[in-house]
């Protein structure tokens, strides 16, 4: 009888811990995604940081989409299709954003070239 009780409580415990674990996983994914989503009606805040109506609804929607089986990228794609590229903090590489992505590399190369020239100048 005693063993029964122990086994039963272990089963119940593992069942609940699994539910809690799944919930935790969901929540951390919602947090991760909402940190990368811009709150469109706030100034300089992510959906994660904001308490506005828009942001709270957005968090619920992200949770709903995860439960529907969307993965992280699919959710970004969905939101971009609804609200445009502006909603994600990291813009994709395309013909409108190539300059944005290449500028730091360009600045780095030009800087390197300048330093290289300078040192050569000093050596001579």
């Amino acid at each position, binding site marked *: 009888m005693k063993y029964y009780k122990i086994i039963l409580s272990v089963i119940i415990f593992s069942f609940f811990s699994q539910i809690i674990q799944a919930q935790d996983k969901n929540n951390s994914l919602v947090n991760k995604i909402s940190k990368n989503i811009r709150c*469109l*009606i706030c100034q300089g805040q992510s959906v994660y940081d904001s308490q506005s*109506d*828009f942001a*709270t*609804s*957005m968090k*619920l*929607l992200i949770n*709903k989409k995860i439960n529907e089986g969307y993965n992280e990228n699919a959710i970004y794609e969905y939101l*971009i*299709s*609804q*609200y*445009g*590229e*502006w909603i994600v903090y990291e813009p994709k590489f395309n013909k409108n954003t190539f300059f944005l992505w290449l500028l730091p590399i360009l600045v780095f190369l030009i800087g390197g070239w300048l330093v290289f020239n300078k040192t050569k100048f000093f050596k001579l």
Partner: protein
Amino acid sequence: MKKKTFIIFIITFFIFCFFIFFIGLNKTDDYIPNKTLGKKIKTFEAVKLLDNQKIISDQIFFNNQIYLFNIWASWCLPCRNEHKILMELSKNPLINIVGINYKDDLENANKFLDTMGNPYSLILKDEDGIVSIELGAYGVPETFVINKDKIILKKFIGPLNMESIKEIELLIK
């Protein structure tokens, strides 16, 4: 010689910056990309406000009318100003106005409709704001002009005014 190239570099840099700002700051709609315009609305599920019956968005579009999806709430002040215009638009037989009641209390919503009139042929409940987000909305009030093929023709962010009536009438023609 070196000084000269440096000055030329600085000048071109400032001219470059000037043009970037000149073009960028003249764009007014930078923060509201109208991605959904001309696109089909995605199918969504909602509950009717008055009888709590489930409805799928596809069931709404059944005849050859222009559908106005109006997001409103009794607590939203601009919605009150906009309501007269919606009442005016509801007289047009070519227009079907669907309300989306945003994060509202049923009792207050009913009071609002009793005193101001009900221009809606159907009202959907949006308790947690998800329906509006799925439509691509920002907040209240907001109005989507959708044709019977479920394509979004126009989006009004903020309250409707006399000018928007003209624009909607133009769209119908």
